[in-house]
């Protein structure tokens, strides 16, 4: 079937089989390998992307479900030259060890701060509860995200959908 959708604000059109999953289309067909695969069953959050602005697990989404929709991946949030504020802060706080879970955390945290610029500690914990990290732990990740809520430390959030 023909799939037409927006990825990182650019239109994409490609022929897919009806049962391909979004994570595979993004990684293997479009080369967007920033989105990671870990559990493939919606438990770990490594494959988190935004569908119409909402964080979702791309391993649970038939690619056909995003027909005509907007998908944002980690490549659409920032890059080395222009990191998203969440990326800048995770680096500053040393909040990555192996880094495999990091893109998923960034997608969750960026959506949370977009919707709740003054998120409480509890809201941050809840907002990141769908992402697992198995090496560095959560303390620095939460501290990095929380620093963006601190009025003295915050950075302007870019408008991305």
């Amino acid at each position, binding site marked *: *079937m023909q799939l037409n959708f927006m990825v990182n604000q650019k239109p994409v059109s490609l022929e897919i089989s*009806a*049962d391909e*999953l979004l994570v595979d289309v993004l990684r293997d067909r479009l080369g967007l390998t920033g989105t990671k695969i870990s559990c493939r*069953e*919606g*438990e770990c*959050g490594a494959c*988190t992307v935004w*569908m119409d602005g*909402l*964080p*979702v*697990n791309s391993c*649970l*989404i*038939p690619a*056909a*479900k995003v*027909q005509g929709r907007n998908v944002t991946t980690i490549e659409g949030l920032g890059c080395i030259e222009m990191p998203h504020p969440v990326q800048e802060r995770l680096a500053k706080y040393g909040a990555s060890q192996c880094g495999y879970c990091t893109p998923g955390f960034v997608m*969750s945290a960026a*959506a*949370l701060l977009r919707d709740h610029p003054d998120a409480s500690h509890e809201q941050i914990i*809840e*907002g990141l*509860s*769908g*992402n697992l990290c198995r090496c560095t732990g959560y303390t620095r990740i939460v501290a990095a995200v929380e620093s963006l809520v601190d009025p003295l430390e915050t950075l302007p959030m870019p408008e991305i959908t």
Partner: protein
Amino acid sequence: MWNQYFSPESLDEALQLNHLYREQARLLAGGTDLVLNLSSQRYAAVEAVIDISRVPELSKIDVQDDSITIGAAVTLSQIVRSELLNSAAPVLVTAARQIAGPQIRNLATIGGNVVNASPAADMIPALLVLDSLVWIRSWNGQARQIPLEAFLLGNRKVDLAIGEIVTGFQFPAPDSATRHHFRKVQPRRAMAIAMLNLAILMTVSDQKIMQVRIAMGAVAPTAVRVKSIEKVLTDLPFHLAENLDLYTGISQDILPISDFRASREYRLRVAQNLLREAIVEMIGSTKTVDHG
């Protein structure tokens, strides 16, 4: 997994497709369980997946004449954010908020959680105490509605014929003085299946429990109303509610099993203690919502 993927934009179109492919079709709303079950081959491959998440009438939360209707494809996130449900049915909001994590809640739907009919489904006890009806439509335009209790036939079994679609849930809006409670026993605060879940609605007057509806999940093949204890508690003066003996009759309504999550004895004891604790908390508080 599947050969064709359909995204109907009206209920009629969805019903026609469902009728056309019959047992060779699977309805997908959020897909958070279905996609896993198809891709792991726990479910046999099918010809057609019919994605009902774009059908507008299935994605709405409505109130009319003090009766609330929630479309089957309403997501758990929509429920958590709904101002109407936060004020009128906090028991449902608290249940939805404790399911999985944000990414799953943005996809998963109330209809999927109910029709899947896991004994541990969190939305079901909340809908049971709200006395919810299940609305069902079939391809030839026929509609029926049955009480949720009757819809649940067993572990992952519901009263739904091939060709039928659950369109939503309807319940009377509880009076604003009604007290709500939802509690989930789970190994961590997110991404966990309930070892036990508990929903309670209660009205009180003159230091007495007037009416109470109690439902529990993960303690029987389906979530159940705990009617033996409801009877014991009705018209009970507050000061008597702490007596543990009142709650021992719970084994008439629940049939917990032993599995890798917990043993039968543990579940029975937890059920009794938790119910007593919840009732004592609810009569002691002036708040109308208790978040477990």
